[in-house]
């Protein structure tokens, strides 16, 4: 049987159950005695709740319970306020509703239909308040406040400790980064560029909606099955809300039908637990597609970027203001603002910086983590402006990036040293793939007014740097069974990225056993040890390393048994190909275990713990345990009459450190790029006075197979990280980030118009071309 290995593609462990329809996702599951929960949501963007009457609803046959703010406030066993950073959320709205779709009440009934019927019969009297519709309005002094005051927990995430809301304003967070002397930097620049870039709120649109089954036993034991990417965070939050020790809360996570950041932190779990508690039976809540739009979005942003450069293209200074629309609740918005701020300099050496990154409350559904996490927003501005600068200075956009881009050993904006920096390699790869050196400049050809202008092609590229959440913790445990098969306990959630298989490959490689002998157990917080989260593209590095350490722990235990039982000196015991090599002979693991336990039975338990800290092993500040570097290049074809364009080719290169499962890496790269196409070309959540116009998949348009370029070229670059398992870093988010600016840059190359607002719709190109025709 083939031994497990890394750097080689193995068939994924979850594939067979998924292609046969056997894999169980949350909405496929039920537990005995389960009833159904539905949520009543606010029809208004901002209103005080004057009165709620549930009498009619309770009369519907089959209705078991209704939850309103009274239940939340009057139950001493419930702490009403929670949230990942600030405690500004409640299970259902308490004094007022803050966005269309804000939960106001919930019903549990024997049949889902009865619950729906009951929702219609809950009478809520609202007193409408002026709604804060956008960031501009939110920042007006003396205007309406979304939150009159915000509760701040005593302890929270270490990396967010300094971020606090500004009293009396709608500013949820203000992150500042200053470096050098900004005025001096501009004074020393030959040219100054100032541009404003914008992008709308978008949605993750995983095909599986949020869902939860909750059960509360007499005595307070809470069990939830949840579609969550971070079961341990949800466990902690539920323990805090329902005032029980963490050990009393069990969170089980099946396979997720996609996450992309939209399933981190509590979503429908608290309300489902509340219903379970009140009814005394298990409750299942499954959100509709529309409800997902009211639950979580990606931050819309307005980014003003002012950059000073010398005439030879050296970046000298950057002043930047980023306003992120965080919606009605902070969620993880503060960290998004911080990450956006950190990356406003892009992957470039800029000695003078003044960056102000804000997350701002508005009366819209909450924005939070989205694949790319604040860097999509900043990169849209950074990488678009790089090409504006290149065009003005008549420098090739690739050369401009090479000139200013990070090299190994350079200092990040925080003055920490960057290590394992595959930026130039990524740029070179995408440039090669897209045929950068051969591109022809067609823009000089005049577009005539009469007749049909031929379609025009153009090429553009972009690159980026991103951090991973630091500090963080991942623990893994594994059992070597009596037949030398392995059971791995890891809290990493399998949401399509293939984590299960990669962890098994790492363990199998260390131990020299086959994948078939390895079982990665399901995620259950009662069983697996602590893992912070499956997000931030961190699991290969952190959990992979923990698994590697746990496997090495088992090898060490085997070694000690051999030393003791066979009297062989420690330095004469080695491992190869799943066997223990001694001077005269070799042993199977099973034999050694038999020796240890005196029978065919027994377990060796391996433990691996990874923690990353605010300082690295060199004593330097560590904003990120490792860095993500990536580049993308697009070739487009534009119809100058209509502004419509299509993708001819897209190349994406990501420095993954080491491609542990090459096909898995390429899948992630191409997959992230495709979501990037949607974000760049089609996707936007549209609002009208706080009402969502398109909370459905007909009018919120996703990229289809028919929209794909004939070729997407995913390229894994490998600049190994000293701390990653076998040098591996992270993969999931990087390829998404350069897509939008690469496409915008390609369109500029094709037809000479610069689009600064996402999505890049045909109409915007058309209007810009019309405008261009009008100019002398």
């Amino acid at each position, binding site marked *: 049987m083939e031994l497990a290995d890394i750097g080689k593609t193995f068939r994924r462990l979850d594939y067979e159950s998924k*292609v046969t*329809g056997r894999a169980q996702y949350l909405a496929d599951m039920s537990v005995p005695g389960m009833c159904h929960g539905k949520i009543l949501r606010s029809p208004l963007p901002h209103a005080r709740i004057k009165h709620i009457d549930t009498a009619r609803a309770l009369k519907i046959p089959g209705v078991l319970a209704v939850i309103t703010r009274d239940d939340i406030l009057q139950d001493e066993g419930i702490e009403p306020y929670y949230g990942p950073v600030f405690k500004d959320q409640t299970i259902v709205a308490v004094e007022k509703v803050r966005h269309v779709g804000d939960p106001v009440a919930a019903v549990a009934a024997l049949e889902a239909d009865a619950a729906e019927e009951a929702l219609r019969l809950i009478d809520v009297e609202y007193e409408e308040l002026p709604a804060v519709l956008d960031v501009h309005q939110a920042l007006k002094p003396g205007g309406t406040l979304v939150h009159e005051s915000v509760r701040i927990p005593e302890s929270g995430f270490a990396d967010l400790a300094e971020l606090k809301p500004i009293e009396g304003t709608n500013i949820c967070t203000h992150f500042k980064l200053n470096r050098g002397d900004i005025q001096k930097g501009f004074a020393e620049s030959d040219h100054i560029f100032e541009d404003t870039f914008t992008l709308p709120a978008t949605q993750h649109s995983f095909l599986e909606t949020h869902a939860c089954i909750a059960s509360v036993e007499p005595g307070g034991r809470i069990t939830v099955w949840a579609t969550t990417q971070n079961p341990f965070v949800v466990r902690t939050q539920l323990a805090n809300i329902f005032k029980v020790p963490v050990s009393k809360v069990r969170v089980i996570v099946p*396979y997720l039908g996609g996450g992309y950041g939209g399933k981190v932190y509590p979503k429908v779990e608290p309300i489902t637990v509340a219903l379970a508690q009140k009814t005394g039976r298990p409750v299942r809540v499954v959100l509709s597609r529309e409800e997902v739009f009211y639950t979580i979005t990606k931050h819309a942003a307005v980014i003003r970027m002012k950059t000073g450069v010398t005439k030879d293209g050296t970046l000298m200074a950057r002043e930047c203001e980023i306003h992120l629309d965080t919606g009605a609740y902070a969620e993880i918005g503060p960290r998004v603002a911080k990450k956006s701020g950190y990356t406003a300099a892009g992957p470039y050496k800029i000695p003078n910086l003044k960056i102000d990154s804000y997350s701002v409350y508005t009366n819209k559904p909450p924005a939070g983590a989205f694949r790319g996490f604040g860097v999509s927003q900043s990169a849209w501005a950074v990488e678009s402006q790089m090409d504006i600068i290149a065009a003005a200075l008549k420098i090739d956009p690739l050369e401009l990036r090479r000139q200013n881009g990070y090299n190994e050993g350079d200092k990040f904006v925080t003055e920490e040293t960057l290590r394992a920096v595959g930026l130039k390699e990524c740029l070179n790869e995408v440039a090669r793939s897209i045929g950068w050196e051969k591109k022809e400049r067609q823009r000089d050809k005049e577009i005539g007014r009469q007749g049909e202008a031929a379609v025009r092609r153009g090429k553009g590229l972009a690159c980026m740097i991103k951090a991973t959440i630091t500090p963080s913790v991942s623990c893994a445990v594994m059992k070597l069974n009596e037949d030398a098969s392995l059971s791995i306990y890891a809290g990493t959630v399998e949401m*399509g990225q293939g984590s299960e298989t990669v962890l098994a490959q790492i363990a199998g490689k260390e131990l020299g056993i086959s994948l078939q002998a390895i079982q990665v157990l399901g995620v259950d917080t009662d069983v697996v040890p602590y893992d912070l989260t499956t997000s931030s593209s961190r699991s290969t590095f952190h959990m992979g390393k923990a698994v590697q350490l746990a496997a090495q722990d088992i090898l060490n235990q085997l070694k000690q048994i051999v030393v003791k039982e066979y009297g062989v000196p420690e330095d004469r015991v080695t491992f190869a190909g799943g066997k223990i090599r001694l001077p005269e002979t070799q042993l199977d693991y099973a034999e050694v275990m038999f020796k240890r336990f005196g029978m065919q039975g027994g377990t060796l338990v391996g433990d691996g713990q990874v923690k990353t800290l605010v300082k690295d092993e060199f004593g330097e500040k560590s904003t990120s345990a490792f860095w993500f570097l990536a580049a993308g290049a697009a070739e487009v074809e534009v119809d100058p009459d209509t502004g419509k364009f299509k993708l001819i080719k897209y190349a994406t290169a990501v420095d993954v450190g080491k491609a542990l499962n090459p096909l*898995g890496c390429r899948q992630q790269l191409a997959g992230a790029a495709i979501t990037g196409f949607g974000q760049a070309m089609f996707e936007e959540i549209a609002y009208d006075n706080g009402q969502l116009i398109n909370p459905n998949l007909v009018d919120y348009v996703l990229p289809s197979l028919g929209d*794909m370029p004939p070729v997407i070229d995913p390229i894994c670059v490998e600049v190994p990280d000293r701390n990653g398992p076998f040098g591996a870093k992270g993969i999931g988010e990087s390829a998404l980030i350069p897509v939008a600016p690469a496409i915008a840059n390609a369109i500029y190359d094709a037809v000479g118009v610069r689009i600064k607002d996402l999505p890049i719709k045909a109409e915007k190109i058309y209007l810009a071309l019309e405008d261009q025709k009008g100019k002398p």
Partner: protein
Amino acid sequence: MKKSILIKINGTERHADVEPRTTLLEMVREQFNLTGAKLGCDIQVCGACTLLLDGKPVSACSVLAVDTDGCEVLTIEGLGQNNALHPLQEAFMEFGALQCGYCTSGFILTAKALLDEVPQPTDEQIRDYLAGNFCRCGCYQEIMQAIRNVTKTS
């Protein structure tokens, strides 16, 4: 008021009592416990609920169960025979044509319907047939490769 229908699911005749409003998807998932087809958008766009009705791909979320009386339905659970997987299932695994797996049943059934109709489709024909199945994880390129591989080797 419930109606009694007779339907052949994965080759076996089954009897069901359904209300007129019950969808084919609800009946298959809840009454027959075949949960491979998923609810994604409820509005015929995403394709996660695709089933083959008399060999034709349909959005089961929007077909009334009563309208399937006397019809044949194929779900993902009915694919493959005698413990062997269908070539499409093998190819999807081989080429990495799935990540989270939520869209997979819909894609495989639709691809099967295509190949039953057009055994050697061109790339354009594959794209046209499958353009209405969405994969948010972004496996489109791998899915094309998997289907091409099945047609090449058949």
